[in-house]
């Protein structure tokens, strides 16, 4: 087992510790006060903060409201609402920006091509994170708590004083993630012509290959990521995950105009943030010429995307499982911190850091698919690791100890006792890492090897001077590829759960 442990530690060091050290070291060593005198830079920083704050606020409001309504009210078609309010996560945000830019008439386009337009598009893409945080949190509250409270207080008061308080850490956690994602988003602001800080960093690096300049420009992003990282770590420590949801949950019956209003609200959010943009994409992509062109131009890139995303997701999930079982508690805690930190570093900054690192360490990695793989592993190992680690801590140790006492080898214990109990979490982590890797634009655009362009990058570079129908068809191809694999993972993960 010593060889395996060495391998797990090598993965941790190469793909997780070194990138974080490279990014932080390079950023702090290239600090320059000169940047703070550049108007464009300061404006981009301010705009990024404004966009991220407004997006977080709106996405939290929409996500929490939808989550509470779907979880706590008896409504027709509950599963349909769950699906409709999840699907936006499977689309690359700038696909929706593309759809809205096609749909809106000239009078509205000024509004769309502005920071408010960016906020609108990003809110629609990210509110499902809060929605799911609320759904999961509400389903894990033991019903006895609320039932007792309902004996002495009206439902409204119970909801405000007890239920909301119990779901708050989950919603906070999701909101922090949304803030980070919105702050580090490149595709939507660039497409809508809004200059934000990550776009400024990308331009400074990609246009001039100016590593010190790009790293210096990254300082506020890294600083903010560190602050959010610490906040998130605090929030995570307060979460009490349930291996399974509570067996019963409290639901309320809404009647009359209240019921109609709730259904209308849920439907409006789904129409606005999912059905309209996806409808536009389908309409634009519906002619045969566009479909043919998209398939001929996009199939190879889709295969590249699937290869990168599947490799990264399966390695990250496998490494997470093995590390949790074979490494000691202290190492596991350290891994938890470092994976979270890497996840919080924006992809553009991570890409610059990786070029900085591997350009010096090994010419055999720079310019190859391994560099992109290293980037995906650094950013997304967190997703399977965190989920699996929460579930691993809750495992009943008696089964493992019994197997060990009866002489079963470590690998056999893992395969026969541990893995079956963590299977659901393994596939959930695999699925999340896969979805994020499929839709990762910043790393893809900066690290893809010659001839190995992922579909998300192709869609981005082709969006200029490409017929809208072809771009729309490519966007749908990307989402379809993602959804097919996600369905497969979900089926596998839930098969024996």
């Amino acid at each position: 087992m010593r060889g395996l442990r060495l391998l797990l530690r090598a993965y941790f060091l190469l793909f997780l510790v070194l990138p974080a050290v490279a990014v932080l070291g390079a950023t702090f060593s290239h600090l320059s006060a000169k940047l703070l005198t550049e108007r464009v830079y300061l404006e981009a920083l301010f705009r990024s903060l404004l966009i991220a704050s407004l997006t977080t606020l709106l996405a939290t409001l929409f996500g929490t409201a939808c989550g509470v309504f779907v979880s706590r009210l008896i409504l027709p078609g509950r599963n349909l609402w769950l699906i409709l309010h999840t699907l936006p996560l499977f689309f690359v945000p700038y696909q929706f920006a593309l759809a809205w830019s096609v749909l809106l008439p000239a009078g509205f386009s000024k509004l769309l091509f502005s920071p408010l337009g960016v906020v609108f598009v990003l809110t629609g893409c990210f509110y499902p994170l809060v929605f799911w945080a609320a759904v999961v949190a509400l389903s894990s509250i033991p019903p006895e708590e609320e039932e007792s409270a309902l004996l002495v207080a009206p439902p409204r008061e119970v909801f405000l004083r007890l239920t909301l308080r119990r779901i708050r850490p989950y919603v906070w956690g999701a909101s922090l993630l949304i803030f980070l994602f919105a702050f580090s988003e490149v595709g939507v602001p660039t497409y809508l012509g809004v200059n934000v800080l990550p776009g400024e960093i990308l331009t400074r690096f990609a246009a001039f290959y100016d590593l010190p300049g790009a790293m210096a420009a990254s300082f506020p992003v890294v600083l903010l990521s560190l602050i959010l990282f610490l906040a998130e770590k605090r929030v995570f420590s307060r979460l009490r995950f349930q291996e399974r949801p509570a067996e019963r949950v409290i639901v309320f019956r809404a009647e009359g105009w209240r019921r109609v209003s709730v259904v209308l609200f849920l439907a409006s959010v789904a129409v606005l943030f999912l059905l309209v943009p996806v409808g536009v994409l389908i309409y634009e992509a519906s002619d045969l010429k566009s479909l043919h062109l998209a398939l001929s131009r996009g199939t190879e890139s889709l295969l590249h995307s699937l290869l990168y995303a599947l490799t990264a997701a399966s390695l990250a999930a496998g490494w997470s499982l093995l590390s949790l079982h074979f490494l000691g508690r202290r190492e596991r805690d350290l891994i938890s911190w470092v994976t979270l930190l890497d996840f919080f570093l924006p992809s553009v900054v991570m890409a610059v850091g990786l070029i900085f690192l591997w350009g010096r360490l090994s010419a055999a990695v720079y310019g190859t698919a391994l560099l992109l793989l290293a980037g995906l592993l650094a950013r997304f190992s967190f997703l399977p690791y965190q989920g699996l680690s929460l579930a691993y801590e809750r495992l009943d140790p008696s089964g493992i100890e019994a197997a060990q006492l009866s002489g079963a080898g470590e690998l056999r214990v893992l395969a026969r006792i541990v893995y079956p109990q963590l299977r659901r979490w393994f596939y959930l982590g695999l699925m999340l890492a896969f979805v994020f890797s499929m839709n990762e634009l910043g790393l893809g655009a900066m690290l893809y090897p010659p001839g190995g362009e992922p579909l998300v990058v192709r869609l981005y570079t082709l969006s200029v001077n490409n017929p809208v129908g072809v771009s729309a068809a490519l966007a749908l191809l990307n989402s379809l590829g993602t959804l097919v694999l996600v369905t497969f993972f979900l089926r596998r993960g839930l098969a024996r759960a």
Partner: protein
Amino acid sequence: MKRWFLFSVALLFILVTCGKREGMEVVVYTSTDQVFSEPVLKEFEKRTGIKVRMVFDTEETKSTGLVNRLLAEKDSPKCDVFWSNDPLRVEILKQKGVLAPYRSPQAAKIPPQFKDPEGYWTGFSGRIRVILVNKELVPREEYPQGIEDMLDPRWKGQFALANPLFGTTSFHVASLFVVWGDEKAREFLEGIRRNGLKLASSNGEVARWVALGKVKFGFVDNDDAFSMMEEGRPVEMVIPDQDGLGTLFMPNAVALIKGAPHPETGKKLIDFLLSPVAEEMLAKATCRQIPLNPDVPPPPEIPPLSSLRLMQVDYAQVARKMEEILPFLRRWVAER
């Protein structure tokens, strides 16, 4: 779990071996829009069986991104051929010692002013700078006719230009510095800023802004204009300064990289790009590029090159000027 392990190892193997496939291949970096360059490169692949590995520039960092990447990789080149969408970048790369000379037999019919005298780069199919006007917002008789219209107060805040640090706009601005001299060019840039210039990140964005009515007109390349027209947008193209300065003509340029990993296949790709086949493909595509080989018919929508009034510029001089004015342009952009 065993199946997962085998699956991961297989994926990793494919990923590593795909990147190291030996055999006939060529690596090309290109700043020409992917939508136009890729079909030409695929055609080369189809005709020769040589695998083309492509890297494209993003629209926002057009030209400069790949030039700086080539400079960064100078000591350990990964690229064989650089297909630039203008001759300036290859001229800069030549001056920095990144290129190797190669005189293609296909270049015989290319006019000498579009070739490097020492054979470091060769020009082919080109584009012109045009004004794209939103015809729903501007009556035809009021269309702007030249670059200095951007100084006219009646257009205040109603026109756009791409970032002059990148792409063909940088070429255009550097050419103005050469033709007008530094003082007039700087005054012009300050003047358009005072007149409410909307600075876009790329020509594609300028074209989209005009098409959507965010501005009334903007300067773009003719391929950006034709893309919008083919989409059915309410736009029209004006070839600027036909009574005075002339418009800028920007040929593509192709060059072999010094120390290229696959020099022989690189030369074959250069031969193909300079051939009438490639020029014809680019003339017939949406970009309507103007061929330099007299045997290839020009696109019908654009007047023949011989009938256009063009800005008279020396590419080597413009390349030097561009490097010289870069700090000023960076400041100008930062203070806009």
